[in-house]
């Protein structure tokens, strides 16, 4: 029975349990719902849940565990040279699965009988040609070992499918009996149902925690593997980055960190003044009407996908800077450069800084402004000497968060900064960042045993630590230096 059919069966049983339990509880109260402990629908839900939870739980567990068990059983029957290491085992298991799938297709289309598929050897028929006729193309001729394994595989999976169906259906029916027999007028059905719902809600809130654990686990395990084959001193302190997939690469992170920080610096030089002045103008000078028009317009920038900014850097900003600044001033002739990526990231970060600062400036109480005006200060003097100092912790926090976003930004630097890892001061030179190299090392053909691939995980953990550190630092500053106004 396919998984979809099983799900349908479970759904039907759950519906039956709902109706039966509801019916039974009402009957136990002599048809008078006022005598029931809970509303009739809670008895129904209790019945339905006692079908759904065990059956679905068993189904999910079985679906997760069966492939692992089958894989293990099959790989122990294969000859040792086919499962010498992880890559070879994956390859032979893929062959086995493909052949088993081919046999299934052949049986389904009538090219083979079930009996033949189970017992045939490689000597009697040309399996490759036969499977070709049912639309399954095999890469090579079938060896007896693989055929045997595939037949074994089909055997186990067919038993597995039968076992799964039987277990799930038995659990569902047992749940139905349990739920329906419990339906009695004194049973506290609502409390039980609410407990289950509360448990589900709690599990949902754990997903966020699981995600974090998943992130930390996935980057750390591969990072440790990387450092076991590549010395960490070379990674953190080497000044050259030249990966070479034939081995002997230099994987120093310093040039990448330099590129990342340089681009972040340029982006902050663009974003901080523009964002801050825009926020001050909107909060202190603009009329309500101007504000209502301009503020959403600036926030439009934040809603545009970064890949669009990437194209803008690649097609417009890069060539513009090259033709009008870099070439006339003799700074080189590269379209992708630190300036290109930095300016575009800066623009992307303007709405981030301006809306956060705007909120913070608006949170400064009016009485401080009034006091300053009363002493004869002009508006700009009030802003510079009263409002900004009061809002400073929040603004610094916003700037740090914007810097962390700039460090983690990927698409704009991939398209606008270039791919050459170097230590250079010229801002019109192409440089590269950690994110660019993560994308570069992990796209295309990857070999998860080579340091050239695994280095991406070490880069990702460095990036994760830096951005997380900046964010925590920003929150700490805001919390520590925040003025409390009453």
């Amino acid at each position, binding site marked *: 029975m396919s998984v979809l059919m099983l799900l349908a069966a479970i759904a039907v049983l759950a519906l039956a349990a709902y109706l039966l339990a509801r019916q039974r509880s009402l009957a136990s109260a002599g048809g008078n719902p006022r005598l029931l402990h809970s509303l009739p629908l809670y008895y129904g839900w209790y019945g339905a849940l006692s079908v759904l939870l065990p059956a679905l739980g068993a189904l999910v567990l079985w679906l997760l565990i069966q492939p692992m068990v089958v894989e293990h059983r099959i790989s122990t029957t294969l000859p040792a040279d086919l499962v010498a290491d992880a890559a070879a085992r994956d390859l032979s298991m893929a062959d086995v699965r493909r052949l088993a799938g081919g046999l299934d297709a052949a049986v389904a289309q009538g090219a083979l009988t079930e009996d033949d598929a189970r017992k045939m050897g490689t000597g009697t028929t040309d399996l490759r040609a036969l499977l070709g006729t049912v639309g399954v193309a095999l890469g090579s001729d079938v060896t007896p070992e693989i055929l045997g394994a595939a037949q074994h595989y089909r055997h186990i999976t067919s038993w597995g499918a039968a076992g799964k169906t039987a277990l799930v259906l038995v659990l569902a029916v047992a749940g139905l009996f349990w739920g329906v027999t419990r339906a009695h007028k004194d049973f506290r059905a*609502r409390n039980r149902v609410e407990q289950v719902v*509360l448990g*589900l*809600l709690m599990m*949902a*809130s*754990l*997903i*966020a*925690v699981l*995600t974090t654990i*998943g*992130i930390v686990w*996935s980057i750390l395990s*591969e990072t440790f593997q990387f450092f076991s084959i590549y010395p960490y001193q070379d990674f953190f302190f080497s000044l050259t980055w030249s990966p070479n997939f034939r081995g002997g690469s230099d994987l120093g992170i310093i040039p990448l960190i330099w590129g990342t920080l340089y681009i972040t610096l340029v982006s902050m030089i663009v974003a901080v003044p523009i*964002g801050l*002045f*825009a926020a*001050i*103008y*909107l909060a202190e*000078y603009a009329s309500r009407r101007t504000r209502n028009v*301009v503020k959403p*317009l*600036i926030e*439009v*920038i934040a809603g*545009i*996908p*970064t*890949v*669009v900014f*990437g*194209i*803008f850097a690649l*097609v417009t900003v890069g060539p513009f800077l090259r033709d009008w600044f870099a070439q006339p001033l003799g700074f080189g002739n590269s379209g992708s450069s630190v300036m290109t990526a930095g300016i575009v990231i800066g*623009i992307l970060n303007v*709405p981030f800084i301006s809306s956060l600062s705007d909120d913070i400036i608006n949170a400064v109480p009016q009485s401080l402004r009034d006091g300053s005006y009363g*002493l004869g200060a*002009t*508006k*700009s*003097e009030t802003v510079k000497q009263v409002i900004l100092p009061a809002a400073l912790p929040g603004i610094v926090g916003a700037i740090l968060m914007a810097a962390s*976003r700039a*460090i*983690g*930004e*990927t*698409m704009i630097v*991939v*398209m606008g900064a270039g791919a050459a890892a170097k230590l250079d001061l010229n801002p019109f030179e192409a440089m590269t960042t950690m*994110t660019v190299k*993560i*994308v570069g090392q992990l*796209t295309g053909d990857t070999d998860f045993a080579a340091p050239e691939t695994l280095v991406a995980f070490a880069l*990702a953990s460095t*990036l*994760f630590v830096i*951005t*997380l550190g900046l964010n925590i630092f920003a929150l700490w500053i805001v919390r520590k230096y925040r003025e409390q106004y009453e």
Partner: protein
Amino acid sequence: MTGAALSPLAPTARPKQSILTAGDDMKRRNAAESRFRIYGLIAIALALTTLAIMLFTIVRDGVSAFHQAQLTFPLELSADVLDPKGNRLRDEMTKVTTVGYAKVLTTAFQAELARKGITQDGVTDKEIAELISKDAPGQLRAMVLADPALVGTTIDATVLAAGRVDGFLKGRVTLESAERDGNVTPDQLRLAEKLRGAGILSSAWNWGFLTNPDASDQRPEAAGLGVALLGSAYMMLLVLVTCVPVGVAASIYLEEFAPKNRWTDAIEVNIANLAAVPSIVFGILGLSVFINFAGLPQSSSIAGGLVISLMILPTIIIATRASIRAVPPSIRDAALGVGASKMQTVFHHVLPLAMPGILTGTILGLATALGETAPLLLIGMVAFVDNYPAVPPEGFLDPATALPVQVYSWASRADPAFIERSNGAIIVLLVFLVIMNVGAILLRRRFERRW
């Protein structure tokens, strides 16, 4: 400095002057004031001008992707070439490859040139064949195989013109640039000009841009967004069914039920930090957990959808919690007062009242999800896919690509014709984003409630 204005000692030191006329000091301070104001205006102008320039260049470069040059001429589908055995059996006709169809096309095209009296002027036969898109034989073959009865008839064929000819009509390729271009000669372009005069070459609305799958480097004219749109739609569907229920459930728990203790605090800090993790790190998570560990196929929409779900989960949780918090406590008190349980209060009263806010947050979260690119690159969605994914649920496992990823992969190809495609794809993407955002704003206007 304004010390003069603020220091109590200053007035005695100052010369006598009327408060009705501004002194030097006041003039300086007023000048500083207006300068400060102008800085603010300049900042806003800079931000908005850049935005305007960006949108302008994208529309300027991208709008032409929706038009495509095509050649129209009568085409005799000769039975001798396409069905040598003459029995119109599909299986036997598949033996004729696109090379055979290309010959049919070229012959018919040249015949049409001769009929219209257009001289070749030094353009060789091979160069004439190059005016037709390399994709045209394949399309014609698919059409004939779908309807073998066409063989032997003469149809009015409309086929794509080659990418350079298309660029010539759009002004991207000129006679000067053709001098330096290995793929086209000025003579070919002059011939194309004549073809346009004769009505064979024309430019038409290009539905193929929205429906075709991607095409290889050599045939930008045939590349379309079909697979990318399907892939993005599948992923949005997955985000909707996985992320939204989980996010709403988590918010309800944290906002209404969670006890205030260390553990709950840890979850809250965790969610706030997850929102600040760079998107590329989520790509790493997807690669290790969904592809390498769970064994989901690379480039599949299910892997992409799950990664993006995890990524926008914090956004959805933050928006949902804000709108649950906005429901005043008096509603809860009233419900509890008439005997509802805590759970009934939440599900019967608080949640329906918070629904508009949750929906708005969900739509905005989906808009972010739709434009996300970086994590998808790592799980292989940048691969070249020219087969449509199947209908879900199996289709979720098929390789697909996504709208923003297609933008990136076209932008990284050599032929400048793909930059036009890339900008066109951005226009499609932005149209979707505008629709979603306007929808969210309307929803908020219509249902927002002040308590």
